[in-house]
């Protein structure tokens, strides 16, 4: 068996350590490089979006088609979600309010909770799932099957036709869907209140809307536009930058939902902090 001199052993050990250290450093550098590349890609994407938004010849027809796709086709899902939100909130809160003798405050409490927080966030999360994944999958599939390239070679700007229209449609339609879900939520709450009690429609709604102030509605609607922007941007970005294989379509759709949902929560947190400081 070959015998190593102690100095050689130490040298060998030192070399291995140094190789490991440089491998670790290289891995960290690669991660940092990837992060910076991704960040640059996102910034470039946003810059292109802004430039194409304000360039000539807007795609109005495609924008309205996307509004229809995003808005009208989401109505059943949003209606069901809104109704269940109001119903569950009422059924869960009613016993506690009865215990404190404050059951008459139920319509106002539900309306304020829905309008300020639950309606916007839950509807935005539902939209992130439906709209974000739809955009990610559709654009991803167009990328994989070279439809985006086909658009480009026929002198049509795919960023303007596909991305600008979808993002603006999401910015406009998501707040409308949220207000629509709020309305169904209050309707669901009235149904919930009548399961174990008896409240007239007019009394319930007058109490509900009597508790809602303009400053409950304004921050909620304002943040809804940002939710729409986040969902539109993330869905389009993930789809537009999908890889080349069919697997990448699934990855684009999935990552669009995950990232859009996470960003909705983060935007909500920031919006709540800002609202708290201003009001």
């Amino acid at each position, binding site marked *: 068996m070959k015998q190593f001199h102690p100095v050689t052993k130490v040298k060998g050990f030192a070399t291995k350590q140094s190789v490991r250290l440089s491998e670790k450093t290289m891995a960290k550098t690669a991660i940092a490089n990837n992060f910076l590349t991704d960040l640059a890609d996102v910034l470039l994407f946003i810059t292109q979006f802004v430039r194409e938004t304000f360039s000539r010849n807007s795609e109005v027809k495609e924008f309205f088609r996307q509004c229809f796709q995003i808005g009208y086709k989401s109505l059943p899902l949003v209606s069901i979600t809104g109704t269940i939100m109001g119903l569950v909130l009422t059924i869960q809160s009613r016993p506690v309010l009865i215990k404190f003798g404050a059951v008459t405050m139920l319509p106002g409490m539900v309306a304020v909770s829905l309008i300020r927080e639950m309606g916007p966030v839950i509807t935005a999360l539902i939209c992130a799932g439906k709209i974000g994944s739809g955009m990610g999958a559709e654009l991803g599939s167009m990328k994989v099957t070279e439809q985006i*390239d086909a658009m480009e*070679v*026929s*002198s*049509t700007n795919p960023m303007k036709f596909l991305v600008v229209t979808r993002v603006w449609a999401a910015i406009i339609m998501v707040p409308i869907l949220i207000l629509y879900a709020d309305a169904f939520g209050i309707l669901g709450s009235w149904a919930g209140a009548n399961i174990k009690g008896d409240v007239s429609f007019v009394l319930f709604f007058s109490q509900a809307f009597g508790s809602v102030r303009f400053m409950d509605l304004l921050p909620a609607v304002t943040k809804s536009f940002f939710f729409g922007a986040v969902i539109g941007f993330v869905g389009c970005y993930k789809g537009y930058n999908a890889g080349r294989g069919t697997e990448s379509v699934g990855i684009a759709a999935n990552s669009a939902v995950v990232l859009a949902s996470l960003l909705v929560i983060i935007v909500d947190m920031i919006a709540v902090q800002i609202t708290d400081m201003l009001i």
Partner: protein
Amino acid sequence: MENQEQHIINKGESVIAIKRLYKSFEDLHVLKGIDFNVFKGENVAVLGKSGSGKSVLIKIIVGLLKPDKGEVVVLGKDIDKLEGKELDALRLRIGFSFQSSALYDSMSVYENLAFPLTMNFKHLGKKEVDAAVMEALDAVGLTDKVRQMPSDLSGGQRKRTGIARTLILNPEIMLYDEPTSGLDPVTSSEINELINEVQKRYNTSSVIITHDLTCAKATGNRIAMLIDGKFLKIGTFNEVFDTKDEQVTKFYNYNFIQ
């Protein structure tokens, strides 16, 4: 051969001129300094194995990819230096038929064909668009499929529709990316005939990217053999394959024995 004779007659004005073109993807060197010319009215078939850089070459010609080094002059303009409206204007003169046909899934055959026209010539009325769509579909023999969706079409019909969509803009240059891949021999032969028909009817100059020797022989006035990122031979079919070069003979034998 009629095609080859025609090539000699037409040789003169160059519509695509490529000089010392290099393209790499990270460590993978795809094109290693190629020189290439396409003359007005001729069909050039670029032959090569899968992954030899054939598709990269035509994507550079149409400006979908940027070259690392070299000059690509298309219809007298250096495509690498063009941007915005100038690039769009040049692309309107180039037709690109994709390997996957790249038909818009959400649009019918009519909408697929009308799309490039309505997007680029917004002043056109419905009657003019209808007439142009029917003319392009007539050129590829698919007038009866005008209301169908791409998912209802066969592979060959999809290829034809893809070609019709490019013809609607009356291009001066046609680029075909693997026009016969995934098709049976009969449909492949029909597509080959269509490529020749398009050349005559629209007076186009074409680059046909293929690894199918039958397609190259049937459509190409000249053949360019792309091996390891360089053109090994360019000439008529007989000039290219009348050789003892192992790389060329291997390709020839494999195709025809298959």
